[in-house]
């Protein structure tokens, strides 16, 4: 891969790195594991960049590779003891510290979802439509709708 392609790639990732960061936070609990996954995703994006020919949206491509990497790669087993009963009661509307608290609450809630459910809901929350989600995941549009509805209800129950 040449310098021009590398520059284009790095710019694309710089512009979209929040996607990778969110996926890492969603799929891994510790900072160290998130950092490792981040590197794995960037490496896989780089490897698949020559086959990305702007046929799909950049964000679709990044989501597909990032979710695929997060779901497939081997994870070290760890004994994690955490208690989730003490979630804040409500999602607060605004304010920098409060937003951070809301974020924490949301990412903690994701831990109750399976890897598959995380993939579907992350695409939905990013505002991809059913057709786009179906293309990225390989599900049918009908099935996508059913799954999203179930995961939304599950998430609402967790968050209260």
């Amino acid at each position, binding site marked *: 891969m040449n310098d021009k392609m590398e520059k284009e790639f*790095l710019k694309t990732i710089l512009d979209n790195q929040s996607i990778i960061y969110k996926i890492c936070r969603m799929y891994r609990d510790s900072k160290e594991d998130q950092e490792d996954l981040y590197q*794995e995703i960037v*490496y*896989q994006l*780089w490897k698949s960049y020559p086959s990305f020919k702007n046929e799909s949206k950049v964000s679709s491509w990044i989501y597909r590779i990032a979710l695929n990497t997060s779901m497939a790669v081997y994870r070290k087993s760890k004994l994690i003891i955490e208690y989730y009963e003490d979630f804040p009661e409500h999602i607060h509307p605004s304010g920098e510290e409060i937003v951070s608290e809301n974020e924490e609450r949301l990412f903690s809630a994701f831990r109750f979802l399976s890897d598959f459910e995380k993939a579907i809901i992350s695409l939905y*929350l990013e505002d991809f439509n059913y057709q786009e989600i179906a293309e990225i995941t390989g599900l049918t549009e009908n099935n996508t709708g059913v799954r999203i509805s179930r995961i939304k209800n599950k998430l609402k129950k967790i*968050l209260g």
Partner: protein
Amino acid sequence: MEINNIKSIWQNASANSKSELELKRMTNVINHPSLKKIRTKFLIETISLTFFLFIYYDWFEGNTKPFYLNSLLATILLAYILNDVFGYFLISRPIRGENLKISIEKYYVRIKRLSVYSLSISFLYGTVMIYYFSSGLIFNNKKLFILAGIVIFLLLMTYFSYRTWNRWIKSLKIQVNEFISDGIN
């Protein structure tokens, strides 16, 4: 709590930004967290086993062992090296299709196959090594005790390796099943 609220939190979630230089480093396999470890392990194993393959006949009196045993040892060493190389390339490419369903399904099948090859070859490798170096020995109680210890060690290593593979395969299998399921049940 409304779903729009959740969407807004997701879309505006804070992000640690990396510099261009940091991202550039991540594109190099030398800086890859897990592939780097696998590569180092594979390289050490491949170099040491290739070295062993060339010297064992002279250093460990291969001429005193039967032909079939020398052939068996050379074959299993080559199989071990080839499996290492094959495994490295397979593990380093988790993206296997144009969508998540196809990609995870294909990766699951390949990882399952790799686990069978790796476990079988590792076990056979251990067994052949033990057999090779114990053939022609006259066993007393002490030697038998050591041999039993080595066999138990090999069985334990195979069991722990099986558990590690199985955990990964199980997690991939769960995902494959979720993609196949119609979502109703």
